[in-house]
C-alpha cells in the first residue's frame, strides 16, 4: 500500500492482504540498499498465516520517495513513528542485516508495542570497508553488484534457486537498482557508524530469535555468534547459505520464524 508519511510517498508491502491493526504485526526491515523485495517469500507467506505484515520501503528505497535516513537511529525513529501512524500494537520486528541494527534501536524506543525481535543474518555491528563506502558514493550500481555477488552463497554463483527460474544475482541487482542512487551510500555509512550495538543487544528484554548464515560474507557468522551471546536467551539457528538468507533459504527461514512465533503468547 502507498501512504503519505512525513510528507513523502511511502510504500509498505503488506504481503497482498490489507493491513489489519487488530492482529499481531510482523514488521520486516530490509538491509542496506535493499527494499521490501528482500522479503518476497516472507511477506506474502506470513500475511496468509493470520498475521498483519508490513515491509516498508525506507525513504528513497523501492517505491518510497523522501530523503534517505542518515543513521541507524534515524531509521529507527522513522519506523517507530510509522508504527504509531499505522496504529500498530503487538509488533514483532524482523530485521535483515542493517535491519537488525535498526531493530536493536527500536528495542530501546518501543515500549509495550514490541513483542519480540528476530534477527536475520545480523550482528551488533556491521563495519563496512572503505572501498565499498567510497564506491557506494562514486558508483552505487557497481557497489550494488559487488554486494549482490558477495552477499550470496554458492546458490548465487550457480544460479540455484528454490523459486523455479529465478536468478539470485539478476533479481538481486535489479532490486537494488530500484532505489534512489544516494540510498546505498547513506545505508552503508549508517551501518559503519553504528557503535551502540553491544549495549543495545544487552538491553534486549523481549523474546529473541537469530537466524544466521554459515557462509555470510557481509555479517560473518563469527560476528553473528558473538552478537547472540550478548542477548539473553536468544534462540539461534544457522543455515547453510550466504547473507541473502531470506531468498536463499526461504522455506527453512519461514519455518523457523513460524515456530518461534507460535511459542509467543
Amino acid at each position: 500500500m502507498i501512504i503519505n508519511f512525513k510528507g513523502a510517498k511511502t510504500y509498505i508491502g503488506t504481503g497482498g492482504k490489507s493491513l489489519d491493526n487488530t492482529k499481531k504485526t510482523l514488521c520486516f526491515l530490509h538491509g542496506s540498499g535493499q527494499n521490501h523485495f528482500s522479503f518476497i517469500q516472507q511477506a506474502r507467506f506470513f500475511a496468509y498465516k493470520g498475521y498483519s505484515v508490513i515491509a516498508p520501503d525506507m525513504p528513497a528505497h523501492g517505491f518510497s520517495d523522501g530523503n534517505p535516513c542518515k543513521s541507524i537511529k534515524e531509521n529507527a525513529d522513522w519506523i517507530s513513528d510509522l508504527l504509531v501512524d499505522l496504529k500498530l500494537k503487538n509488533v514483532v520486528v524482523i530485521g535483515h542485516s542493517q535491519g537488525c541494527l535498526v531493530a536493536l534501536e527500536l528495542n530501546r524506543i518501543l515500549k509495550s508495542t514490541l513483542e519480540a525481535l528476530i534477527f536475520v543474518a545480523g550482528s551488533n555491528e556491521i563495519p563496512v570497508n572503505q572501498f565499498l563506502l567510497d564506491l557506494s558514493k562514486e558508483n552505487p550500481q557497481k557497489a550494488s553488484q559487488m554486494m549482490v555477488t558477495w552477499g550470496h552463497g554458492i546458490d548465487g554463483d550457480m544460479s540455484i534457486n528454490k523459486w523455479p527460474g529465478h536468478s539470485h544475482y539478476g533479481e538481486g541487482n535489479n532490486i537494488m537498482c530500484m532505489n534512489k542512487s544516494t540510498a546505498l551510500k547513506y545505508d552503508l555509512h549508517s551501518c559503519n557508524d553504528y557503535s551502540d550495538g553491544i549495549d543495545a543487544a544487552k538491553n534486549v528484554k523481549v523474546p529473541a530469535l537469530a537466524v544466521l548464515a554459515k557462509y555470510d560474507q557481509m555479517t560473518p557468522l563469527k560476528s553473528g555468534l558473538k552478537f547472540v551471546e550478548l542477548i539473553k536467551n536468544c534462540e539461534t539457528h544457522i543455515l547453510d547459505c550466504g547473507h541473502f538468507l531470506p531468498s536463499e533459504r526461504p522455506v527453512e527461514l519461514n519455518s523457523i520464524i513460524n515456530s518461534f512465533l507460535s511459542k509467543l503468547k
Partner: protein
Amino acid sequence: MSENYKFDTLSLHAGHIPDKETGSRAVPIYQTTSYVFNSTEEAASLYNMEVGGHLYTRISNPTVAALEQRLAALEGGASALACSSGMAAMHLVISAICSSGDHIVASSKMYGANINLLQHTMPRFGVNTDFVNPNDPEAIKKAIKPNTKLVFGEVIGNPGLDIMDVPEIAKICNSKNIPLILDATFNTPYLMQPFKHGANIIVHSLTKWLGGHGIAIGGAIVNGGNFDWGDKDKFPTISGPHFALGGISFWEEFGPSALIAKIRAEGMYNFGPSLSPTNAFHLMQGIETLPLRMKKHIENTHSILDFLVSHEMVEWVKHPDLETHPDHEVAKRILPKGSGSIVAFGIKGGREAGKAFIESVQLASHLANVGDAKTLLIHPGSTTHSHLSSEAMKEGGLTDDMIRLSVGLEDFNDIKKDFERGFKAVKKLNK
C-alpha cells in the same frame, strides 16, 4: 563463494548442483507430472505463490527450472521461463502484456510465424501491430502511440539478417516507458546479451543454436528485471489487481520478476505450453557446449563467406559481418564476436538455379530449421515464406533466388566440396 563464474562455466553448471542423496552429476530428468505436498499448508502456500516450489509440471518442473536458471544466468536476467517452443514463448509474452485495444510496434523483417502472429492472429483479439523498418529508430519512435505496450524485433532478423540497433532502440523505448522485447534466437547469449544494451525481455527459440542439435523443440522468455511495470493504467494486469490469487499485484509482490510470475500464474496455468522435462534435459545438454559450438559456427561461417563471395556462380552474399551489408557497422558494434551463422546468398540463374543447387548438395540438409550442428539449407521463397507475395517478400528484404544457409560444424573443406557439387549442377542447368 562468489566466484562470479564466466560464461563458459555457467553454460556447464548454472542451475544445477549435484544433490547429496544421489550425487548425480548430470541434471536428473524429473519425469513427473506432480509433486507430493508435505502438508495442506505447504500446498496452499505454493498455490498462493507465497514461496517458490513445484506443484504441477505444467507450471514448473525441477529439470525445466535448471534450464531456466541456466538461461537467466547466461543472459544476466532476473528470471526465466521455458516453454514448449519459441512461438509459445512469443505468444506467452505478448498475451501477458497486451489486452484488447493495445498496440504493438514490431520489426517488419522477422521470422514468418512472428509476423503472422502479430499481423493476423492478435488483431482477432483486439491487439494491433504496426510494422516498421528495424534499422530505422526514428520510424520506431514515430510508430509508438499512447496505447503502445511493447516494441518487438529480432536482434538478427530471420531470414533477411537485418541487425537492430538495440542500444538506440532501447533508449527510445526507455524514454517512453515501453518494454523492448527481442527475439535473440540467432545471436544467443554467447554472441550478444541484449540486457547489457538496454533491452528488457528476451525470447528464444531454444530449438536452434541454444539446443544446437536439432533434436528438441523448446522456447524461453528471459526477464531482464529492469523494466518498471508500475504504471497501473498502462499495465493493469501486471501492476493492478489480477483476477488470479485474490487480486494480486505481480509488480508489488515480485518486482523484477513480476512478468515471469504473471506468465506462470496465467499463461502456464491457462494456456499450458509447458516444456517436457526430457526436452529440457536435451536442450541443456546442448547449452553445455554452446560457447564451443558458437566459436566454430562463426569460424566456419567466415570461411564460407570468403568462399561464396569469390565464387563465380554466386550473384550476391548477405551476412552482417561483410562490409557490404548495410548494417555492418551496427553489427560490429553490438555483435563483435560475429553476427551468427546464417548466410543468405543468391545463385546466378534465379529461382531454378536455387532449386537445382539445393537438390544436388548431399552433406548439407534441405530442411526447415536453423542452428543445428549440421549444415542446413532452405529456399525461403518456396518454403517458409511461400505464403507471401513477391512484393511482400521484397518488403521483408527477400528475393526469389535467395538461399538461406545455416552453417554447421563440419570440416569446412567438406562443406566447400559439397557446395561445389551444387554449383556444378547449376552450371549444367545454365548451359
